[in-house]
């Protein structure tokens, strides 16, 4: 039985599985249906901490209806927790990212207590339990009573985690049948099957769908951008880790020989007091250069982001650290040549010199920018390859297929499985 929030999400989910046929081909969708048929007898219960807000909820809001359309009975539940509980899990999140967080024994107890309360209150009805991120990870403690197969989907970069928190979570993680990570670098040496399931973009969403040229032009006019100069664009929130100042440095070195403009577009996060400071530093650094445009884009402006990416000549993602960096896939999907740092999940999306250019610092970024702004044929070739690469590997249909295969593989050990 769905609750009202879930019903609303289902209602808002406009995409039908057949809508993707024109993009990935009919046979691909047929294969998804075949996988769905093989799971039609199973009930899959997916559990996370929220229906709305955040990347996980956004992914599930797309994937759950698509799974249901394929005949797979996926039910979505969220755990309930107090503000204190979510403060603790936020600390866990930061600690897993490598931040030095101090977690008190009371906070660990609170985490366990809330998980225990949810164990009593949440109705467990699945054959497979698909648990997302650390918040509900301790639900596994009663797997012997509940039964079924358990999969933990970790959306967080745990390549260099705080050991205290990781060791605490590890005790629960080891009881799962499988774990899914977003990047190979997140994998740990564990006696549990670990699968690589990269995040993906939805080609039919406002952020990625095709746009008429009038819409793109109107966004350029709105932000006072020239349509005659080549445009270098970086889309990301204002964060030191996205290195916006480094992008300006690289741009100014290129600008000496090539007439072009730079657009740094993004938002500030309300839960990140640092972002306002970064924004003001970036504005100060760009002051006096009319070809550098710092655009503060309000949340939900997906069409505008889409238009800026489509209007770009070259797209950059010069992050110092990155989770997966799906903005790279968004740019590649739009056939744009991309220069991005070789961090996080970016090397999965960019095979250097084949689907884009990787860089390790400002020098590499300058070299790449010069190449792409002057050699249009090469830039177009990279852009076209990038589009094909995303089509094959980073669309939501591939992600959906990976999840279905993961569920199917739970009962089938071995390197080769015949279904």
């Amino acid at each position: 039985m769905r609750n009202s929030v879930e019903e609303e999400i289902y209602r808002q989910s406009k995409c039908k599985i057949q809508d993707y046929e024109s993009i990935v081909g009919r046979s691909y969708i047929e294969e998804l249906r075949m996988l769905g048929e093989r799971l039609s007898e199973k009930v899959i219960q997916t559990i996370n901490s929220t229906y709305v807000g955040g990347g996980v909820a956004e992914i599930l809001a797309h994937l759950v209806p698509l799974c249901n359309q394929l005949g797979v009975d996926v039910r979505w539940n969220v755990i309930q927790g107090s503000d204190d509980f979510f403060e603790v899990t936020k600390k866990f999140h930061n600690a897993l990212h490598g931040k030095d967080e101090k977690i008190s024994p009371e906070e660990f107890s609170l985490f366990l207590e809330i998980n225990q309360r949810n164990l009593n209150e949440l109705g467990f009805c699945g054959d497979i339990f698909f648990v997302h991120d650390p918040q509900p990870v301790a639900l596994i403690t009663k797997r012997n009573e509940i039964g079924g197969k358990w999969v933990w989907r970790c959306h967080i970069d745990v390549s260099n985690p705080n050991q205290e928190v990781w060791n605490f979570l590890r005790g629960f993680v080891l009881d799962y049948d499988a774990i899914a990570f977003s990047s190979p670098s997140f994998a740990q040496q564990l006696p549990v099957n670990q699968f690589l399931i990269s995040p993906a973009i939805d080609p039919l969403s406002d952020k990625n769908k095709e746009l008429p040229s009038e819409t793109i032009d109107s966004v350029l006019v709105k932000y006072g951008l020239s349509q005659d100069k080549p445009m270098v664009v970086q889309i990301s929130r204002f964060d030191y880790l996205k290195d916006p100042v480094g992008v300006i440095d690289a741009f100014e070195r290129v600008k000496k020989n090539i007439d072009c403009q730079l657009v740094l577009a993004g938002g500030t996060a309300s839960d990140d007091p640092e972002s306002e400071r970064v924004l003001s530093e970036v504005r100060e650094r760009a002051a006096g250069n009319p070809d550098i445009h710092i655009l503060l884009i309000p949340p939900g402006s997906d069409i505008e982001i889409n238009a800026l990416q489509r209007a770009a000549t070259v797209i950059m993602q010069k992050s110092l650290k990155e989770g997966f960096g799906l903005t790279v896939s968004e740019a590649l999907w739009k056939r744009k040549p991309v220069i991005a740092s070789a961090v996080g999940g970016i090397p999965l999306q960019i095979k250097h010199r084949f689907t884009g250019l990787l860089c390790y610092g400002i020098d590499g970024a300058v070299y790449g920018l010069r190449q792409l702004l002057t050699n249009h044929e090469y830039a177009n070739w990279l852009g076209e390859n990038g589009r094909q690469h995303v089509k094959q590997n980073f669309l939501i249909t591939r992600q959906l297929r990976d999840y279905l295969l993961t569920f199917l593989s739970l009962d089938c050990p071995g390197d080769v499985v015949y279904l």
Partner: protein
Amino acid sequence: MTQWIRWLIDNWLQIAIPTLAFLACYVVGLWLRRVAYRAFDRWVVKARWEGSQLVVQTTRRPFLHWFILLGAYIAIHVSVLPAEGKTIAGRAMASLFILSLMWVAVSLSEKLVKLYLPKLKAPQTPTTLVANIARVTVIVVGVLILLDIWGAPTTPIILVLAAGLFIAGLALRDVIPNFFLGTQVALGEQIKVGDFIRLGSGEAGHVTSITWRNTQIKTLEGNSVLIPNSTLARTTLTNYGHPIKEATTPLRFSTRLHLKELTGLKAHNLHELVDTLKQVPDSVVYYHTHHFLEEHHYLTPEPANDFALWVSDALGNDVLGERLASIDTFDFATIGALKKRLVDVIENYLEKSPAGGEAPEGGEFHFIRSKSIILPTPYVARDLREFAEVMKKITIDSIYFHIFDARLRLQKGTNDFSIWIDDCLGEQELADEIARLDPYVYTLESLRAKIVQLVEEHI
């Protein structure tokens, strides 16, 4: 008695003229029938029309009846009967003539339909329907003429009939085009049962039946699809004709999907790379030497294996990178042999240059294992034409399975397609041509196109 004789003597002319007129018509009828049927026989001999006997059988007797009726009509007309009697008798003669004509038309049409029905390659339903419509039309027209002869008002009946036809036309507006097009499709012999057809909309399959409304095809996935004949007429239709040589065993296409399983193992330098490489299972080597084919299937020439790329890009060692890249996967029948070759090349290099370099932070080599999930698709090929059609439809994962996976799975240095074409179709030349293709120098899409081209040229 005497009065009768006297009356006959007085009026013999008034009797003789009608009698003579009647007899003259009868004689003329007999003579005309002989002349006309002889002429008809001569024409039939020339024309060799097989329906001639039916025409003769059906019309020979009525032909004489018509002259008898004509004679009677003229006799009555020239007789001394009162005008009112003449009119009634004349209408009766005309009515009998119309009834006879109707009988001949209906009878002849039925016999001709029976004669030609088995010879027409048209669907039976529309043919009999046409015969029924013709019969009803003859009867309706005949009744209208009869009513007109007897002075009954026919306009309201015609109006009712016209309205009925209009309503029927509206109700059957979708059926009528299908009916005519079905007949046209069949009579035109554009398609026949057993033909393999492809519609502009993409549907393709063997024609299993043609009715007056629909044409049914069996698709390559084994589904039955009903196509309205009106759709057939509106779309581009390619008819490939009858099935060609059928395989002794049909080829059922499978597909291979894979999950990337993380081992948690990683290498920071060449020593760690080669040490770990020796320990990992073949499925890890398989992944790092083959995943490019699917993930970067659009690139040609395809990038080298992961080991070569990592050594060049992360360690900056272009010399060893080149040596690893030059290892031709096509040369190895087993992953074990390929793995040994990779290890040998790295170890030979390390013997001369033990340092080998260190990857930057975040640039480590992560060992990933491929977990293959193989499942059958609904696509089946029973001959080469179906094979070519299926090849155009299946996913690149399916092509990958039958070409790349098969080489290593079967360890025969060939692929599933060549084996099926040789073993089940006996087309060794084509099988060899496909087997000789080096799949590693094509993108999966260009490989698909090349195989389809070879097969279509062969057909």
